[in-house]
């Protein structure tokens, strides 16, 4: 197992993208106690943007595969930092804790999710592929790509 462990493959990352995006756009602002405020609008916008570029990402859950997966991860990081910075840039943090804590908490959640995401997309692969290649007495490529068919069509 690599350290730090990165058990989140690109599919699971996509599941998180869509479910968190949907939560941010819907009930989460009210649940966080900022319903109807500027903070709610910012969080909803972040959720919509997040879900939006997820649909354009080149990973199993992307609908149009335009954005490379690593670029998507970079956007995640930038978006998380931007969300955390927003209350301090606008000055709304002065209104009270609930106007900046949700932003920072979401940023930390996003960054920890990123820390556990495998940038190669392979996720939790923890085999020793070189050891397998050394020990394997077959040649997979030759077996697949060379030689005659293994089946004879028989008359019925």
């Amino acid at each position, binding site marked *: 197992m690599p350290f730090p462990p990165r058990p989140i493959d690109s599919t699971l990352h996509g599941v998180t993208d869509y*479910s968190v995006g949907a939560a941010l756009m819907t009930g989460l602002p009210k649940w966080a106690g900022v319903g109807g405020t500027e903070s709610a609008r910012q969080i909803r916008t972040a959720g919509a943007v997040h879900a939006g570029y997820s649909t354009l990402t080149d990973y199993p859950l992307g*609908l149009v595969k335009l954005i490379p997966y690593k670029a998507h991860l970079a956007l995640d990081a930038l978006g998380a930092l931007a969300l955390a910075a927003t209350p301090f840039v606008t000055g709304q943090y002065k209104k009270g804790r609930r106007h900046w804590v949700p932003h920072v908490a979401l940023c930390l959640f996003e960054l920890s999710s990123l820390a556990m995401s495998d940038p190669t997309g392979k996720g939790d*692969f923890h*085999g020793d592929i070189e050891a397998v290649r050394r*020990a394997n007495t077959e040649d997979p490529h030759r*077996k*697949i790509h060379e030689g005659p068919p293994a*089946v004879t*069509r028989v008359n019925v």
Partner: protein
Amino acid sequence: MRANVWSGRNTVQVENVPDPRILNDRDAIVKVTSTAICGSDLHLYDGYIPTMKRGDILGHEFMGEVVETGKGVGNLQVGDRVVVPFPIACGDCWSCRHELYSVCENSNPNAGIAEKMFGHPTAGIFGYSHITGGYAGGQAEYARVPYADVGPIKIEDDLPDDQVLFLSDIFPTGYFGADLCDIEGGEVIAVFGAGPVGQFAIASAILLGAERVIAIDQYEYRLQMARGKAGATDSINFSENPDIVEQLKDMTGGRGPDAVIDAVGMEAAHGHGALHAVDRVKQSTRSESDRGHALRDAILACRPGGIVSVIGVYGGLLDKFPSGAFMNKGLQLRAGQCHVQKYTRPLYERIRDGQIDPSFVVTHRLGLDQAPDGYETFKHKQDECVKVVLTP
């Protein structure tokens, strides 16, 4: 002895465990010479089949040499070379007498659990959770084979292990899938999944006389094997175009295949992002046990009046089942764990006749101690892996 045991989700380990011994007069002990990792072992590995316990010995595809027999085993001798079918069947009950060996009524000591899950008990299976009896599996140096007077098939010539090993499961299972399609000659058959069972379903459809066989997968190297080795006439790579149903209709003049085989089962992947996300979330939160996208597409693609044959493993419940398409198109849904004992002899004869060389699927042959890396390589489709055979 050394054995590959389940140690939790995504973890197997090769450990020293007690040797098996005869517990019943109808038992035999087999010294395993070859054993394989099955795609359905990955459902255990991934943690989607309940009732696994740490220390359970995995493996239901194995063959070897008989080293001991119980008093009631008259058909086998010490030294015989045998392939062992994965379903454990008594040979005497109503199901066995009707050649429905995978639903044997006597071989599952945990029948109550299976009955709660499925409405009826199902047969015992080697190394496949406690729902199917909690039997020790064959990824080990030795295995106890219950009802040894019924299941194992004697190999009476010098065919190498790789050519006969798959009589234990994936060749009969693929053949069963094709057999359920009532192929009489000239049909178009679509096969979802070009893993090992899918490869044998394709090859079997060809053996039975299908005119066209369309292989469907997302890995090009597997489709290459399907076309170059198993006999597929066409292929669909859904990582390039996820609309499988439309492509199948286009390839069949708008009608759809005569029969569709689902050789994928409960961990289907597909290119429709949003649907896949919903399935993944529901499966990971255990609000559905099976990701059923291959089955959904199979039903939607099959021509009206056609047959959908399900040999991919499902464990419990799935949602978004297209019941309207299924009913209104008048489809027949046929399914099952293969009744392996019914097919071993005729398929052995096909191998001996040279109609098929089942060893074509073997891409990796490793020692038993490398089982953990073998599972990972197979699961993650690394190194063009199709089938891993382990040698104890």
